[in-house]
């Protein structure tokens, strides 16, 4: 896993090599600083020299200090660059891949989770590249370089340093593994606690209605307290580990100091060397200890990356033979189409056959879950049939150029998506080249003009994610407006008026009738009063096409359709 993220950074190959080089330089400058410092002090303290005599060493020291600052600052910039570039690249690839995987994948996975991965997940890589990786390099290069220099200087110190250093990552790993599992469940608990808080906030009105909103105060307090308790237990383990690490580091410095002191007394080591070792010792342990705190940035980044690569590894559907141009006659035939989605056992569609002739208006009715929307998905080529064929004229739909095909369909979905853009641009989704006047005209047709003009900036009002929220009915009218602008030969309506109240529905119905004139239409309906005027009605039940015919014909037949209509009819509509 780590390796793959590393590989990503190879894209910023130059920067990567540079940061390695700079870490190396940093290690050297640390040593030089210690060297000059100890020399100056030795000369003054034991060498009986004056400030003038050591001025030259001060210049050297100053130079080293400045270089060190430059190296560190520059290195920070370099690793930032790596992070920025990797993130940008991953965002591109992720979205491109998701776009190719299509709505079938995006809808199956919780789209919210995917959004989180694309946004926060990728941002989490920042810490990985800016904290963890440099920390890792420093933790390896600095101690190694120091060891390299200490070895010829003093064997005893060398041995102490050599033996104590590996203890740190060892302890880190040991406790990391134990704490890891507990930490993960704790992380989940934290997620659940946040989710609970959110749940309560969102359901606040409901709670009030049931007089439970006050009780929640105690519940929130209790849950957060429980979380604190369990977290503290987990953290105790983590703290013991950091205690151990801290002890190893500082006690080792203490041991070094004492053993140097003893040998100084015995005269087996020079003062300058002793001081040098003392100055260098904390710098030896610092990067190792620092790695401890950066380690969890590493695991978080790795976890995010795992999810990202999971998605990127999902195989793409093979669209390579989808190249044929469209036939002139756009008759659509479903031939024994069966559709079983990946995560399901039951077939969403089971051996469905029907023909949609040019200019025909077909309605599809049935209870929810009966397969209606699946037909729409297949028609839009969001999924491929598991069995059977869909043909346009005589050509397999899967072999036609996808974009050209979709250009021929205007789709009004059950839950139209409103993009983070102006109302004008949202409607222009149907035709990016439409003029302002054309958009207004269409908006008036679908009775959207009034509510648009009532918005703060009219057509230029930003809606969607970061803008004003539209109601279900308003969104639907925008979607219908899009369909109008698109001016496509095939219209696919999926519950197009379900969110509209009586008055608006009646008005919009007029517009819909204009839209449907002289076009081929597939209308998916809950409300039977829109369906019954169709040329033919397809009745779906649990994925099977059970009845087909005109309204009159089906009523006479006395089957499922008739029952549906009768339920509908026994409820008087106003």
């Amino acid at each position, binding site marked *: 896993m780590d390796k793959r993220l590393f590989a990503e950074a190879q894209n910023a190959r130059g920067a990567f090599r540079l940061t390695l080089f700079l870490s190396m330089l940093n290690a050297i400058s640390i040593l030089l600083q210690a060297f000059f410092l100890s020399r100056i002090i030795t000369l003054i303290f034991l060498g009986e020299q004056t400030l003038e005599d050591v001025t030259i060493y001060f210049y050297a020291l100053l130079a080293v200090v400045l270089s060190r600052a430059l190296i560190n600052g520059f290195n920070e910039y370099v690793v930032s660059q790596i992070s920025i570039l990797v993130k940008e690249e991953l965002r591109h690839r992720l979205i491109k891949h998701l776009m190719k995987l299509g709505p079938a994948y995006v809808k199956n996975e919780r789209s919210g989770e995917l959004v989180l991965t694309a946004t926060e997940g990728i941002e989490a890589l920042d810490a990985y590249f800016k904290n963890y990786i440099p920390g890792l390099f420093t933790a390896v290069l600095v101690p190694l370089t120091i060891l390299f220099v200490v070895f010829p200087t003093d064997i005893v110190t060398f041995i102490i340093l050599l033996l104590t250093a590996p203890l740190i990552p060892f302890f880190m790993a040991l406790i990391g593994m134990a704490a890891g599992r507990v930490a993960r469940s704790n992380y989940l608990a934290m997620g659940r606690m946040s989710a609970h808080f959110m749940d309560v*906030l969102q359901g606040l009105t*409901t709670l009030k209605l049931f007089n*439970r909103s006050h009780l929640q105060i105690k519940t929130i307090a209790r849950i957060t307290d429980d979380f604190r308790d369990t977290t503290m237990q987990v953290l105790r383990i983590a703290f013991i580990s950091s*205690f151990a690490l801290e002890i190893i580091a500082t006690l080792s410095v*203490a041991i070094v100091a004492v053993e140097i*002191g003893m040998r100084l007394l015995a005269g087996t080591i020079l003062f300058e060397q002793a001081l040098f070792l003392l100055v260098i010792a904390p710098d030896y342990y610092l990067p190792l200890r620092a790695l401890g705190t950066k380690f969890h940035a590493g695991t978080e980044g790795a976890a995010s990356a795992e999810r990202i690569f999971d998605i990127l590894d999902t195989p793409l559907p093979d669209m390579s033979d989808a190249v044929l141009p469209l036939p002139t006659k756009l008759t659509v035939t479903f031939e024994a189409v069966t559709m079983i989605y990946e995560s399901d056992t039951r077939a969403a569609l089971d051996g469905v056959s029907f023909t949609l002739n040019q200019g025909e208006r077909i309605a599809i009715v049935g209870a929810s879950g009966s397969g209606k929307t699946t037909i729409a998905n297949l028609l839009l080529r969001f999924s491929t049939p598991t069995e059977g064929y869909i043909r346009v004229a005589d050509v397999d739909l899967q072999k036609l150029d996808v974009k050209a095909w979709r250009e021929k369909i205007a789709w009004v979905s059950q839950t139209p998506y409103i993009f983070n853009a102006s109302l004008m641009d949202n409607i222009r989704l149907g035709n990016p080249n439409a003029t302002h006047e054309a958009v207004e005209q269409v908006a008036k047709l679908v009775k959207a003009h009034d509510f648009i003009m009532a918005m703060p900036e009219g057509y230029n009002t930003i809606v969607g994610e970061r803008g004003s929220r539209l109601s279900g009915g308003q969104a639907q009218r925008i979607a219908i407006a899009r369909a109008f602008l698109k001016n496509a030969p095939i219209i696919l309506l999926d519950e197009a008026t379900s969110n509209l109240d009586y008055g608006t529905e009646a008005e919009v119905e007029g517009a819909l009738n204009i839209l449907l004139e002289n076009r081929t239409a597939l209308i998916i309906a809950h409300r039977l009063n829109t369906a019954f005027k169709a040329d033919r009605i397809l009745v779906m039940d649990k994925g099977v096409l059970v009845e087909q015919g005109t309204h009159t014909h089906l009523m006479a037949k006395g089957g499922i359709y008739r029952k549906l209509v009768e339920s509908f009819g026994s409820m008087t509509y*106003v």
Partner: protein
Amino acid sequence: MFKTFKRLLHFASPFKMRIVWSILWGFMTIASGIGLMATSAWLISKAGLQPSIADLGASVVAVRFFGVFRGVFRYMERLVSHDVTFRMLANIRVWFYTHLEPLAPARLLQLRSGDLFGRIVSDVETLQNLYTRVIAPPIIALAIVILMGIFFAAIDFRVMITGLAFILFGVTILPLMAWWQGRQFGPPLVKTRGELNATLTDSIQGLADALAFGYEDAQYENLARINRQYRTQEDRMARHDSLQVGLGVLLVNLASVAVLWVAIPRVEGILLGMVALTMIAAFEAFTPLALTANHFAENIEAANRLFEIVDIPPAVTHPEKSQETPQKGRLQLNNVRFWYDENARPALDGITLTIEPNEHIAIVGTSGAGKSSLINVLLRFWEYQEGTIQLDGVDLKQLALQEIHHFFAVMSQRTHLFNTSIGDNIRIAKDSATDDEVRYVAQLAQIDDFIQQLPNGYDTFVGELGAKLSGGERQRVALARMLLKDAPFFIFDEATANLDAVTEKMIVNAILDVTQTRTMVFITHRLTLLEKMDRIIVLDEGRIVEIGTHQALINKQGLYAIMAQHSLDVLHLMGAVG
């Protein structure tokens, strides 16, 4: 800004003692680090003069002491500071919820953002850093400054001045730079990130629509553009961050060189090592301060957003306790007028109406006619401005909110189910309900069969983490809930608007079966069995324009008759009626 900070500090005040201890441990940790370097340097310098071992005895002990105890102090500090943080977090949540509760739902609807709650959760989580990243570091830094001041003063005055000069630079200038930089680059970066996230969301959640309209390439281009913009801003931020880092490193090491330079002509050689090394060690307290500035800003912003919500006055005030409890009484509205906004048309414009106990009433009208407003006012979610509403002769404004919510049970168009089990979702209505009682109401609501065939039956979780219920299933759970509540007055607010014909019929029948002896109000623009209602009230533009039974209204040939006729025509054509 400082006013917000003062308010923020209130969260910390219950934990004063713990905070003091935590700061003490933090101080001791760093002081031990300094002590370790000081005593080690002293030990070595002294040893360099080759005295007897006895002379070194004390320093050896001291070195070992600091070596061990620094770890101990650090452990204690971590323990206490995390404890404080979590307690604060608990406090903040409870505080926020307590203040939010009276604002729902009226005031919350006014707040525009779709992700209001997501923001709230993350803002509350930001605040938990208040102690560890904002309050503690400066106080510890100050203590260390004093320590170093005293330490150096004992050595040499000029050394002290030099040392303090560098320290002060590190404590003021660098954090200020960080602060300034945060203000310069922070907001545009945050804004671009917001747009980037919105574009990513659009690309993922709007994928179907984008593909259907051939928009995917344009969308991708859009993303590329914002991605680039984000990169440019991150780059700018990175440049300044690097400058910060460089200056930080420079400061620490330069300080050590400077005090050495000043010390050499003035201080005994044996102390030189100590001077140089303790200077470096002391900066452990000051380097974090650069980040403190940014965390301070983050905390203030988060707090401002939360205070903004909390400071909104509630829409309705009501007494703590009622004088009397309404029984199964009559509801009387007298010339009630209500508007959401002073400048807008009144949503209710002189409503006078009496509903007797056990009556079954329907309220119809186009959207905006006032149906939901009526409910909002009855439930006291909004305050009506004129007229009176009485329940059993008691003015609604005299009743405690609990009483009112006890009296009414409401099912609305979209039922919120909590992320808990189905059983618990139903039990919200009555905590002490037995399993049998829950099953009973579920049977009445015709949802028991469905629940039984779920993997864990009544213990099956619903919502994000569990079973996804269809619209019809949710509404039946809501019905079960209402039945468990057993309130005398049932209100159905567009409860079946999103359901298909078959499901709607099933639910409506279930409702009518079990509500014989309750007062019932149906609000709908798609009606169910209007003929069975005792009375139908027709609203238009906030006024009652017609009242009567279905047949009476049809005969009257007024608004209702016109509305009904249109549908009846359609149904006739369908051959569905008659």
